[in-house]
C-alpha cells in the first residue's frame, strides 16, 4: 500500500497527490510516468510523474478528473493509502544541453513539464515556458515555473489572467522573436500538441510531444498504446512517451483515444450509482 502524504486541490476537477514512494523517486527521471491501481479490480491508471524528491522519497502526481477511475482517485484524502504504484515507466525525456528550448504545456500537461524544465535548467539551457489554461481558476504552479524559466508566458483562453490567447499564439510570437530556438517540447491535449508540431514543422525546429495513448500494462506487452510514427508502429509505454512530433500520426491518435467511450460512460454511471447507494447506506 502507498501512502498519500499530501493532497492539494487546484480546481474542481484537478488535484495533486504527493505519494511516499522512495524507490520510485530514486529512479525517476523527467518525462517518465507511473501507474496507480487504487484497489483490487481497479484499472492501471497511467499518470506522468509531475515531480519527485529523492531526499524526501516522494513522487507527485497531478490529476484531472475525466472519468470513473480519476473520479475515484479524487475521493482519496491525504493520509489514505492505495494499493499499487508502479514506476517509473517509459523512457526519460532526452535532456541535452541546448542554447534555448521552448516548453509548451496545456492544462494538465503543465505539470509534467516541470521536471523537464528543471533538468534543462540544470544543464544550463536557456528556457522559455508557455503555459496555457482555459481560465484563471485552473492555473497552478505559476511561481514554480517562473523561478526556473528565463521567460514565462501564461495564457488564458478567456483572457481572465496573463495574456489572452492560446499557447499556439504565444509560440508563434516567441518563434518570430530574436532568440534562436533549438528545440520545442510539448505536453498537453492532443490537438494542442498537433498544432505545436504544425507551427514548428516549416521552421524545422526539432519538436517532441508526450504521448498519452491508452495503456494497460505499461511495460510493452499488450500493444494497447501503439501509435503510428512515420508509418511505423511504436509503443508509447516503452518507445515513448516522448515522440518526434513531426512524425506522429495525430489524427489516428485522436480517434484511438475514443476507443472505449461507450464503456467509459457506462462505467462512470455505474460508479456514481454505487456511490449514491453507499451514501444512502443501501450498500456497504
Amino acid at each position: 500500500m502507498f501512502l498519500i502524504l499530501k493532497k492539494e486541490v487546484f480546481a474542481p476537477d484537478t488535484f495533486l497527490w504527493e505519494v511516499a514512494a522512495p524507490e520510485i523517486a530514486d529512479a525517476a527521471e523527467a518525462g517518465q510516468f507511473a501507474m496507480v491501481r487504487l484497489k483490487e479490480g481497479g484499472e492501471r491508471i497511467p499518470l506522468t510523474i509531475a515531480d519527485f524528491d529523492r531526499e524526501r522519497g516522494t513522487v507527485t502526481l497531478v490529476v484531472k478528473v475525466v472519468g470513473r477511475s480519476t473520479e475515484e482517485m479524487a475521493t482519496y484524502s491525504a493520509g489514505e493509502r492505495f494499493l499499487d504504484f508502479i514506476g517509473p515507466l517509459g523512457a526519460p525525456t532526452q535532456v541535452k544541453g541546448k542554447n534555448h528550448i521552448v516548453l509548451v504545456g496545456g492544462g494538465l500537461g503543465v505539470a509534467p513539464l516541470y521536471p523537464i524544465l528543471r533538468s534543462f535548467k540544470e544543464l544550463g539551457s536557456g528556457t522559455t515556458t508557455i503555459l496555457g489554461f482555459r481560465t484563471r481558476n485552473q492555473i497552478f504552479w505559476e511561481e514554480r515555473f517562473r523561478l526556473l524559466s528565463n521567460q514565462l508566458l501564461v495564457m488564458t483562453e478567456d483572457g481572465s489572467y496573463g495574456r489572452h490567447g492560446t499557447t499556439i499564439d504565444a509560440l508563434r510570437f516567441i518563434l518570430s522573436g530574436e532568440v534562436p530556438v533549438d528545440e520545442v517540447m510539448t505536453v498537453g491535449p492532443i490537438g494542442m500538441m498537433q498544432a505545436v508540431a504544425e507551427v514548428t514543422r516549416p521552421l524545422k525546429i526539432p519538436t517532441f510531444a508526450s504521448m498519452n495513448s491508452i495503456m494497460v500494462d505499461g511495460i510493452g506487452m499488450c500493444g494497447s498504446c501503439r501509435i503510428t510514427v512515420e508509418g511505423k508502429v511504436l509503443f508509447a509505454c516503452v518507445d515513448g512517451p516522448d515522440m518526434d512530433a513531426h512524425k506522429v500520426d495525430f489524427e489516428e491518435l485522436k480517434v484511438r483515444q475514443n476507443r472505449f467511450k461507450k464503456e467509459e460512460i457506462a462505467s462512470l454511471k455505474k460508479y456514481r450509482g454505487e456511490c449514491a447507494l453507499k451514501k444512502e447506506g443501501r450498500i456497504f
Partner: protein
Amino acid sequence: MERRSKTILRQKVAMPEAPALERRNGFQEVSLGYTPELAKVEADRCLLCKKPLCVPGCPVAIDIPGFIRQLSDGNLPAAYEILKRSNPLPAVCGRVCPQETQCEVKCVMGRKGEPVAIGRLERFVGDWGVAHGAAEEVEARLTGKKVAIVGSGPAGIACAQDLARAGVAVTIYEALHEVGGVLVYGIPPFRLPRKIVNQEIEGLKRLGVRIERNKVIGKIFTIEQLLHTKGFDAVFIGTGAGLPKFMGIPGEHLNGVMSANEFLTRVNLMHGYEKADTPIGMGDSVIVIGAGNTALDAARTALRMGAKEVTIVYRRTEKESPARLEELRHATEEGIQFCWLTQPVRLHGDVNGSVVAMECLRMELGEPDLSGRRSPRPVTGSEFRIQADTVIYALGTVANPIIARSTPCLKVNQQGYLEIDPQTQMTSIPGVFAGGDIVTGSATVILALGAGRRAAQGILQYLGLSREEERGEGHGLTMPAVSRAG
C-alpha cells in the same frame, strides 16, 4: 515387475468435460480431470517400460513410468514426489503441455492404439499435490548467497524453486501486479484455473522465496544495481516474450483492432471476466487472426465474454495449425468458426474509425517446396469480406526491449532475444543468467521450466554451491540443453 491384465485398453480413458453449451458461457474449467478410479484405469494401461520411450520425449525428462507405477499402486505422495523432482509445476503442465507432440507421441502404446494419457495422469497427481499442500517445506541450510530473479513466469518460478531448495535466498521481481507470467495474464482460467497457479506460488513462498510485485527491472532498478548496490550474487532474467506483432496491412489502427495479448490482458490480468473496471472493447462479431494457442485462447475467451460470432482466420490449413488438437476440438464444439486458407489483406472502417469488416483473399496450397512443405499462395480475384466489429491479432510477439536497453553489455541476437551459453544459461555478463521466452522467443511452459532449472544449476555452479553428488540424479542435470524452439 510383470503387471497388467490380459486385456489392455487400446484407447485412452476419456476425461470428463463440461458440456460445450454450458461452458461457453463461463470461465469454469473445461476439462474436469480424472476421478481416482479413472486415473487408476488409465495408469494401468502403462506398460512400465524398462527403456521408456516416453521419457526422452519430455523436455525435463520426468520419470514417467516411475510416477505412473506409484499412481497405479495408490501411492500418491510418492507419485507427486517423482513429478516434482523434475517438474516444478506438474498441475500446470498436465493441463497445458503439448503432450501429444512430446512425451505421448513416443509412447509404445501409441503404436497399436492411443498412447498412455501421460498429461492427464500428471494433472491428476499434480492436482492431488496442490490440494494436499504437498509442496515440500525443505529445511535447506542457508548458504548466505542471494539471487534476484526477474519475472515470475514459469522460467522464473523454476529457477527460484531450485535455488531456494539449495539454500539460496531468492527474491523474485515481477513487473505486473499478479504473479505467474503468461499463466495468469495469458492462458485463460477455463484452461488453467487461477487457484492452481496461486497455490503453486504459495508453495514457493513456503520455500522462503520473496516476491516483490510491481517492480519493473530496468526501470526501478537496473541489472547492474541488483548486482552492485542491492548485493545480489547473481541474477536470472526470465522476462518472457514481449510486444505483439501486427501485419502492416491497411486499417490496423482502426478501433476494435487489438492484439491477443491486449485482449487477454484486459480479460485475465485485469479481471474483465469478473467485470472489473478495465474496459474490454469487444463487440458482437469477432475475428481472430492466427491459429496457435494464443489465437484459440483469444477466440474462446471472446465467446465467453459474450461475442455472438467468433471466426478464426488462418492462411494455412488445419493441419499446419500450431494449436493443440484438443484445443481445436474444444473450440469447434463451442461454436467457433474456422476460415482456413484465408489471408487478411485490409481492414475497413466506418466514419468513426471503428473496424466494420475484413477483406481477405482465399489461398491455395502450392506445389511442395524443397523442404516438402506446401506453402499457401493467393488465388487471384478471390477477394471477399467478413463482417466484424472486433479483430484480434494473434501472430506472435517480438522481444521486449526493456532489459536489453537498460543493460548496455548484454548481448542480444538480431531479433532482440538474449544470447546465452546453452549449458549454463549464462548471458554475456558474468553472473547474469537468462531463460524462457526471452531467450527462445515464444515457446512453451515446459521449455521455460526446463531453462529455469538449467539456469539454477548454472547459478549454483557459478556461486560454487553445486554439489557433485547430486549430479545425474534427475535434479535437472541430466536434462538436455534446449536452444531455440522453432
